[in-house]
């Protein structure tokens, strides 16, 4: 499941090449983050935990882009924080070039952090308003003095400004003198300063206007090709993620529910949540209005403090049956597709995974998921099971 972008089946059809792949840059295994819920002030008691991220695993190769999509509260930002070590995981490992960074501290951690940088969502609050652009982009050099000799730093900052498409003369300006799109370029320049290998970008374009969004996406693509960067690109916008990603992971309530290449996920989704999510995205083409089959999910995402047993999606799923409440579906190629070819045979955490004719389907009625409370799973849908 770690092939680079490639519609063709892998040249050497090995059985699921989980461990021992040719040197992935990042290797994440069983990552888990729980935030304890406590009661009382003097006598603090633990009353439970928000399961923000629960056993997430993936690999990231050099120059590869992994897109992580999901709705708000699904834990995608927590994954980002765990990757750059802004949070410590409750369990699991994040290996960078074979070394588990979750247990590192001090000098060793600092060294690793040089190579894994982050771009934040909000270009308005992630830049210090009292610092000039030159100081903001140059700050990484203060923390890692080895990265550039003192006398050379201004020149490096100008170079970085140029690389992200800003006028190097702006070096003494303050963030408020820039527009949102320009500020995001500053954030990207800062992330690039130390020549990282991996950039974790958490919703980097969602605060930007449509016409500016495309500029920043194009910039990120250009930088990836120029510097061989690997991205973990986290976003809620499925179209943006498809555009930039080689591989995509769909996240729901702290878990990856489906992973694959962009073609596998977008053309041949087999998990009901992915299918619903894709069908809900408005397509800028009025002609598609009638042709599209929409799956309308009932209800909202349950609270991660009290996730449903078994499959976490079952409370909103039209296929849910008794087994879904009992057994957690594993993220693996579903039994039904084993031995089948690549586009459909990709990991999907569903007991009833099946393909759906999403693309240009024959006109069918809108399928409405049965309204179910958080406790009772709905019966099988029109073609469930």
């Amino acid at each position: 499941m770690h092939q680079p972008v490639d519609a063709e089946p892998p040249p050497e059809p090995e059985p699921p090449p989980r461990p021992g792949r040719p040197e992935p840059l990042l290797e994440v295994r069983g990552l888990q983050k729980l935030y304890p819920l406590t009661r009382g002030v003097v006598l603090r008691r633990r009353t439970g935990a928000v399961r923000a991220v629960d056993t997430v695993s993936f690999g990231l190769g050099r120059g590869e882009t992994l897109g992580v999509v999901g709705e708000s509260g699904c834990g995608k930002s927590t994954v980002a924080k765990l990757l750059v070590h802004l949070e410590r995981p409750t369990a699991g490992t994040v290996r960078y070039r074979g070394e588990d960074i979750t247990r590192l501290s001090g000098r060793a951690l600092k060294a690793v952090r040089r190579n894994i940088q982050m771009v934040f969502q909000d270009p308005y609050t992630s830049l210090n308003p009292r610092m000039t652009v030159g100081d903001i982009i140059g700050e990484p050099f203060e923390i890692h003095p080895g990265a550039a000799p003192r006398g050379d730093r201004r020149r490096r900052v100008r170079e970085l400004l140029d690389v992200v498409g800003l006028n190097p003369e702006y070096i003494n300006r303050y963030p408020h003198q820039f527009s949102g799109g320009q500020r995001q370029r500053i954030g990207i320049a800062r992330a690039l300063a130390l020549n990282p290998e991996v950039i974790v970008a958490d919703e980097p374009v969602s605060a930007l206007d449509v016409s500016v969004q495309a500029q920043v996406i194009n910039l990120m693509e250009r930088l990836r090709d120029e510097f061989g960067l690997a991205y973990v690109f986290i976003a809620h916008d499925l179209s943006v993620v498809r555009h930039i990603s080689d591989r995509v992971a769909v996240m729901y309530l702290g878990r990856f529910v489906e992973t694959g290449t962009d073609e596998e996920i977008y053309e041949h989704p087999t998990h009901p949540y992915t299918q619903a999510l894709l069908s809900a995205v408005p397509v800028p083409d009025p002609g598609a209005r009638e042709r599209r089959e929409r799956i309308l999910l009932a209800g909202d995402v349950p609270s991660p403090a009290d996730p449903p047993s078994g499959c976490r999606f079952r409370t909103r799923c039209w296929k849910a049956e008794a087994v879904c409440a009992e057994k957690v579906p594993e993220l693996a190629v579903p039994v039904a597709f084993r031995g089948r070819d690549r586009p459909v045979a990709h990991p999907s955490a569903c007991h009833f995974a099946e393909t759906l004719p999403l693309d240009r389907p024959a006109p069918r009625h809108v399928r409405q998921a049965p309204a179910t409370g958080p406790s009772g799973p709905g019966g099988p849908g029109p073609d469930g099971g």
Partner: protein
Amino acid sequence: MPATGTRDGERPAPERDGPSGARLLDVRDLHVEFRTRDGTVSAVNGVSYHVDAGETLAVLGESGSGKSVTAQAVMGILDSPPGRITGGEIRFRGRDLLRASREERRRIRGARMAMIFQDALSSLNPVLTVGDQLGEMFQVHRGASRRAAKAKAVELMDRVRIPAAKQRVNDYPHQFSGGMRQRIMIAMALALEPDLIIADEPTTALDVTVQAQVMDLLADLRQEYAMGLVLITHDLGVVADVADRIAVMYAGRIMETAPVDQLYRRPAHPYTRGLLDSVPRLDRKGRGLRAVRGLPPDLRRVPPGCEFHPRCPRAREVCVRRRPPLYEVTGEDGTPLPGRASACHFWKDELADAPAR
């Protein structure tokens, strides 16, 4: 042409009239300014649009395009000062709201038109139950008793498909999820069965799956009540799904208006084209997005001539000198394309260059 005829252009007799023989909402040549310490910001510079009963007009624009300010002027909730309407007309069923008495305006704006905002949590009162807030509409405008108002509130919550409305009517806004809160906002807007609803980015704060639910609900209700709907958004996808007609705004002006399918298939303005080309599409994975270069203008210093010319790939000398009026758009044979207009000197070239979409 009827879409946004300039004031002095001849207007064909409106076809889909309201009962009184006038359009439901007809905004004509509206100008709004903000006086700030840093100078005068012209937020709206001569916007004209109209909506008929049972119709959805989408007003599409990026931040700073003036789409929300126009709506606020229509609803009479413009912050003034610093905002000031400096010209134009806002006709509701033929009556110019800007020249109506305060009392008349209040009656129309409360009961006949309503607005839905983006952020439901900050638009609802956190210390009142949703039942009280919904019921208040009936107590104030219809003189209903407390008990009757509450019953009405439950009915409304049912209508916007909030499950277990009876049990939840005494809950507070924070006890509802984002999608449910937006439904309560919609219920509140619907309370007095208005003729017109203005929805300002109603689903922007919501997740995709919830957004689909809410847009579906809005479309159903619009049909059921035969309301006019003005949908303000920046999302080209949402617009394609629900709108009948589209007005594209940029720097406080309307750049183009067209029926929805024509706008997407054959835009007649380079800005519209730029927007369409710059969104990544789920159903197509092409290499490289064609971004619109540059940045939206500072509204204190709107460029001379065409507002879009500094970013326009088609810009020529005339675009700097002369501001294009809203031209009526015609087909190759000169027959007018109903409802289409473009504020570009070179709309003909743009239309001719339209690739097969």
